[in-house]
């Protein structure tokens, strides 16, 4: 059952369109990320869902009821949502316990139940022993946990997170990603998560909506976004890739220096003739010192190593196929060492190539 729907949601500031006709539907219990570079409108979208910003056009619906439309916005306090802010917004004048109890007290629950639920949730986020502390006495990660507890304890219909990890250091960020996903698995709250960090979105989300310049470019499960990006922007934004221009003709896609059969990439593709753009991940290309055999029709191309960088976990090679101006980024394991100028063979996995717009 759908819990939250955005239909044609638009926000203009004067002539500037920040959010441009967004459509998105979340199922009950689903975790969806809005992922995009800064300024792409993802936070504005989130704030429209929360009711802090009035849309210029379009609607926000929750469980089938319109809660935001131009000129009529249900105030945030009546939406049964909760939100985690970039600054955490933990109230410094209240203890951890008082912060977490705030929403429950507003719901006029008996004090016995408030105390029980606060204690429970603080244990869940491993903050039980710090319930009496003031926020100023907590580290950034602990404040983040308080913010999580405060948002979850009210059992919101929808949970909104606005770049919640961007103020944490790298290690803590990784830990909190799993924490957020763990809490979602435990409570199954319908969640919208705004971030510019693709690893964060991938680690937490059921689906990711990639946003660019106020539009949603693609909504898909994380691994599909990676393996089957549908636009040039998505292919470039999610992971690193080689974007190759080619020509589709007679069931074959002709690159500068080699060909691939269309059917190998996507059996459902038509046979028309047109220029195409393909995303080829560096991980999907393999490097060989000698011509490999027995690859079952995978395209194999000779080339020369033009550049290389050792990154610790991998080698990053730039390989130039013979008789071609194309420069391909190829990733190889640490023990696979090739010198610059060395003649090599590369083979492609057509299944991991994706046609993009």
């Amino acid at each position, binding site marked *: 059952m759908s819990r939250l729907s955005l239909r044609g949601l638009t926000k203009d500031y004067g002539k500037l369109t920040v959010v441009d006709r967004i459509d998105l539907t979340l199922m009950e219990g689903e975790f969806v990320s809005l992922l995009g570079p800064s300024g792409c409108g993802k936070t504005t979208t989130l704030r429209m869902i929360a009711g802090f910003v009035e849309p210029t056009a379009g609607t926000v619906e929750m469980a089938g009821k319109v809660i935001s439309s131009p000129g009529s916005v249900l*105030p945030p306090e009546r939406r049964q949502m909760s*939100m985690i802010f970039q600054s955490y*917004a933990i109230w410094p004048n209240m203890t951890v316990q008082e912060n977490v109890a705030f929403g429950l007290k507003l719901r006029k629950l008996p004090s016995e139940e408030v105390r029980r639920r606060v204690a429970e949730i603080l244990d869940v986020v491993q903050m039980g022993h710090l319930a009496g502390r003031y926020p100023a006495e907590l580290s950034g990660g602990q404040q983040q946990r308080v913010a999580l507890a405060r948002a979850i304890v009210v059992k919101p219909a929808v949970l909104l997170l606005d770049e919640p990890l961007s103020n944490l250091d790298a290690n803590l960020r990784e830990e909190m990603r799993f924490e957020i996903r763990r809490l979602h698995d435990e409570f199954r709250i319908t969640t919208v998560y705004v971030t510019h960090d693709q690893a964060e979105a991938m680690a937490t989300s059921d689906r990711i909506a990639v946003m660019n310049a106020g539009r949603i470019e693609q909504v898909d499960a994380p691994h599909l976004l990676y393996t089957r990006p549908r636009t040039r922007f998505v292919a470039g934004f999610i992971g690193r890739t080689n974007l190759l221009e080619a020509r589709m003709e007679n069931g074959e896609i002709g690159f500068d220096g080699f060909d691939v059969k269309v059917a190998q990439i996507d059996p459902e593709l038509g046979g028309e003739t047109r220029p195409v753009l393909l995303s080829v991940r560096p991980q999907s290309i393999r490097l060989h010192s000698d011509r490999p055999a027995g690859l079952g029709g995978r395209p194999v191309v000779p080339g020369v190593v033009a550049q290389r960088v050792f990154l610790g976990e991998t080698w990053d090679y730039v390989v130039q196929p013979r008789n071609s101006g194309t420069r391909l980024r190829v990733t190889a394991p640490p023990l696979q060492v090739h010198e610059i100028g060395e003649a090599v063979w590369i083979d492609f996995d057509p299944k991991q190539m994706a046609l993009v717009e």
Partner: protein
Amino acid sequence: MNDTAAILPKPAARAAEPRRATILDRLRHIEPVALVWLALVVVLLFLVVAPLAKLFLVSFETQETGAFTLSNYVTAYGRARYRDALVNSLLLGLASATISVVLAVPMAWAVSRTDMPGKGLTWAVVLGAFVVPPYLGAVGWILLAGPNSGVINRVWRAVTGAEGALFNIYSFEGLALVIALHSFPLVFIFVKAALDLVSSEMEDAANILGAGTWTAVRKVSLPLVWPSIMAAFIVIFLETIALFGTPAIIGIPARINVVTTQLWQFFEYPVRVEVAAAYAMPLLLITVGMIAVQKLLLSRKGFVSQTGKGGERRPIKLGPWRWALFGWCAAVGLLSVAMPLLVLLQASFAKAWGRGIALDNLTLRNYRLLIFEHEMALTSIWNTIWFSASAATAAVLIALLIAYIVNRRLVPFGEALGFLAMAPFVIPGIVMAIGFYAAYASPPLALYGTAAIIIFAFTARFLPIAYANSSAAVRAVHPEMEEAARILGSGRLHAISRITAPLVKKALLGGWLIVFIVASRELSAAIFLVGPRTRTMSVLLYDLSEAGNFEVLAAFGGLLLLITMVLVGIGMKLVGRDFMLRRT
């Protein structure tokens, strides 16, 4: 998914809405904030715009008939004596601003950048000079350096056997010095704040290239804070030309006429408010112009205020020179605080202050007279307290509402409110008082002699202090703090009262105390507006000084200081040690 959205043109998307917002919906969404905004506009028109507009209009009116005329300007600037007063004011402003900079810049540098001993003492000197009302310091200096019976001159004659006086306070130099001795704290605050932002690496960079400590200071540190020094210079220049108390107490006996004392004379019977208004215009124009210059100075890019923090700061080791600097700070402390207060204290317990400290000269008569016999003393103390408290409360309340509306961008053109709230900053207190007199003293409001007109004038005069304070307080509370409460189910007002209010409470208390303290010693705005029953302590002190009764005056000054000190003490305890001296 984006494809389907792209197919739908915008109007179609709008039409697809399940329902249009009804009129009822729209009414429900007019936030009460719009009404508050309207109320604030009315309040600001009353407090700021109307008095100024009236002042301007009155300067072109004929007395009684109200017909248009330029004769007020002819009268105001037709006599050499009146023009000389303007020249005197400007010279006095330059002189006292220069002396203030000379006094305070070494102190600021010493406290901010060096290992000088006694920094706490220097802070105390600065705070002391700041909280002692200038007119009280002026009286102290009359006791110290009056040509005949001043303590310094008597000691000088006794020691050297000379005939004349070492230093005559009834002179232009005397006047400039006394004003500077109570203005320099502003230079100190400005310059220290700027020096605090200069990283030691700036000086290190000069040192490594071969500059000694002194060269580095002269060529690097001081030029970096030059805009702040100039800004402070301008502020003190403006404060001086708008100052009434000290020029009245010292300048009138010394026959040095300045703009403010001349304005006062226009208010002697028969009151010529039209001429006073015309005469006040240059003061207003100079102030507005100089504040604009100051803003330009401080906004220039590339200076310290922009380069900001970062980099280590460690005190410069001065060796024996640190004692020279300490001596300088101590000397300023003696001249500005210790000596004047000591002679005042002595006088307040003396039968006749000129007879010095002797057992048979000690008495409590002066205090007894004030507390039990004087017909106005207790009334004026009470007036001072409740006028100041009312004005501080009103100013902080108005300022907080405006700061909140402006900061949270709740209404379009909210900045206009902030501009109006800051406008009195460029209006000299004495000009504002004349404006209030012109606008509200006579019918239809006929507020002359009422408490209301004084409270309104104080509120308007100190609104900028309250606004700067409230604005900083509101800015410090991240909007997400409130939003976090709202999304959890609390309405806007509930969120403000539960979240924002507790967070800004302390800062507001600090602002309230500052307004209270400056209002409780305000003389120039009060003296034009008081009636027989609404005299404040500052006005009564001035009356006593005109009567020449220095023993009673000293005792009364002591009481005023005591009240101030108690409040400063409360402020330091509740808000922080530097709450008066923070640069906002």
